């Protein structure tokens, strides 16, 4: 457990733990970008003052304990079904702010249908899509988003598109639909990108508050453990390789 730290004399606190986060420690592996993304969501909830009306949907995968990390209400969804569960909550109580937090296996493989159709209905929810190109929790299997040539435990000689399929650019797909209000791809491998990702998350929540409809923030993340890289190397790989394949920036913004 952490302790409340006294402010040193003559100093002002300029960075501290968001109030939307509970005291529970994150269960992510060391250096995994999930933790940064989780914190950015909490900061957005704080800044918009919506903690008491927010409901999060925890996925299956590395963020399965998400409900423990936040101080807001939470629902645990089945693998891939978060957007359908979020739809049910939001339709039942439109006054609530509903967000899902999903990995690439969850959102872009088993939950593709739920994601595409929630987006297509313009469901007024916020989706945080954490894309690290691998199934982390289950031990590093190929994800729909795994890059060509990338080695995983189920593509031991590297992903071969002719046999394993091509990486699914689901944000580009969603951006073609009429339903969504905002589709963007961000990353958090360095400070400037963290600032941008935060801005995108804030916008995705603000869109919901303004009734603009479906907003999805894809965030390129790391999996140092299953990528067999140090956290620093993993971040560099996102900056140099992954973000070349999955270009950063807004894919759709209806304003």
């Amino acid at each position, binding site marked *: 457990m952490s302790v409340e730290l006294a402010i040193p004399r003559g100093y002002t606190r300029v960075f501290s733990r968001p109030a939307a986060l509970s005291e529970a420690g994150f269960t992510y592996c060391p250096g995994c970008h999930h933790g940064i993304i989780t914190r950015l969501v909490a900061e957005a909830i704080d800044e918009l003052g919506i*903690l*008491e*009306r*927010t*409901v999060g*949907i*925890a996925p299956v995968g590395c963020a*399965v304990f998400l*409900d423990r990390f*936040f*101080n*807001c*209400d*939470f*629902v*645990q*969804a*089945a693998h891939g*079904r978060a957007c*359908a*569960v*979020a*739809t*049910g*909550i*939001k*339709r*039942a*109580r439109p*006054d*609530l702010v509903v967000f899902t937090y999903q990995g690439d296996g969850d959102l872009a493989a088993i939950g593709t*249908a*739920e994601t*595409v*159709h929630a987006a297509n209905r313009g469901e007024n929810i916020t989706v945080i899509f954490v894309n690290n190109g691998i199934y982390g929790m289950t031990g590093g299997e190929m994800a729909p988003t795994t890059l060509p040539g990338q080695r995983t435990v189920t593509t031991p000689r590297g992903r071969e598109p002719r046999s394993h399929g091509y990486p699914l650019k689901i944000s580009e797909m969603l951006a073609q639909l009429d339903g969504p209000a905002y589709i963007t791809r961000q990353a958090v491998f360095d400070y400037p990108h963290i600032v941008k990702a935060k801005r995108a998350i804030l916008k995705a929540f603000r869109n919901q508050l303004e009734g603009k409809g479906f907003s999805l923030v894809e965030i390129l993340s790391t999996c140092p453990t299953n990528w067999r890289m140090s956290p620093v190397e993993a971040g560099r790989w996102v900056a140099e390789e992954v973000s070349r394949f999955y270009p950063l920036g807004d894919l759709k913004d209806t304003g």
Partner: protein
Amino acid sequence: MKRVLMRGNEAIAEAAIRSGLKCYFCYPITPQGELVEYMARELPKRGGVFLQAESEVAAINMVYGAAAAGVRTMTSSSSPGISLKQEGISYIAMARLPCVIVNMMRGGPGLGNIAPAQGDYFQATKGGGHGDYRLIVLAPSSVPEAAELVGLAFDLSDRYRVPAMILADGMIGQMMEPVALPEPVDPAEIPPRPWAVTGAKGRPKNVISSFDLEPEGLRRMNLVLQETYREIERNEVRWEEVETEDAELLLVAYGTMGRIAKTVVRLAREEGLPVGLLRPITLWPFPYGPIRALAERVKAVLTVELSAGQMWEDVRLAVEGRTETPFYGELGGVVPSPGRILEEVRRYVR
């Protein structure tokens, strides 16, 4: 009370709306199309939410969400669609969320056909999805009873936080009968849901979850379910008996088959045959006790089903060898006439 002529599917829909249904999620499938159409037409007019989902999987997960948010919610489908919903139903059961699921059974397995069948008895009463759970399963044998049981399904589901299923078939869904519809429920009478996710304002956060990685924790969650199920078994067994007082042959049949069996009892009695009927209304909790009591004094208990003998297993569990337990079933959507069953009856009593 004023009675109106309604189709079973429509009566179920109307009764659900009068029970305070707020959110209905569906995916089209025969033979429950009229239920979906009625909801699409009526529910939004009366302050509810109708949403046609992209799949049965999505529909049941929308039910999960709406139930978590604390409103009365429902989905309906038919056999293949109910199979798709099993994942979600398992989650709903463990998360202890109230909701109502309607299954207008059709012939199976696989795509089967759209004719009346009772092949989903195991799926409905033994859990259906993964894990140790039960649904409260109510089996109407007429349109008025279907309407009545919908209200009961919502009430029981709320009271015990266990999902409830209306298990019927296309015969009940599509026949028309006069129905005395229930008065609309006063929203104030719907039990409060302090556990729902409504925003953590002035209270600690609520979490709806079906999971605990620690075996001890998951065991405790399971024990809560099991204690609830024992309580339901003690309090909520419902059945109907017809001419059982002096019966030497007891028929056991439910739903559409229960309705036909009633005619069989009448025809048998006209012939002077001492035949009675026990018609389970709750398939879970199953009326083991009442069947056992009657098994003490009849010469045989004949189970009649539109399946290969799914409920028959429960009847035999109830009888526990006290008497003969023959079976007659039809498959594939074939519905036997009362005369055909009467032939069967004559084999055991004279």
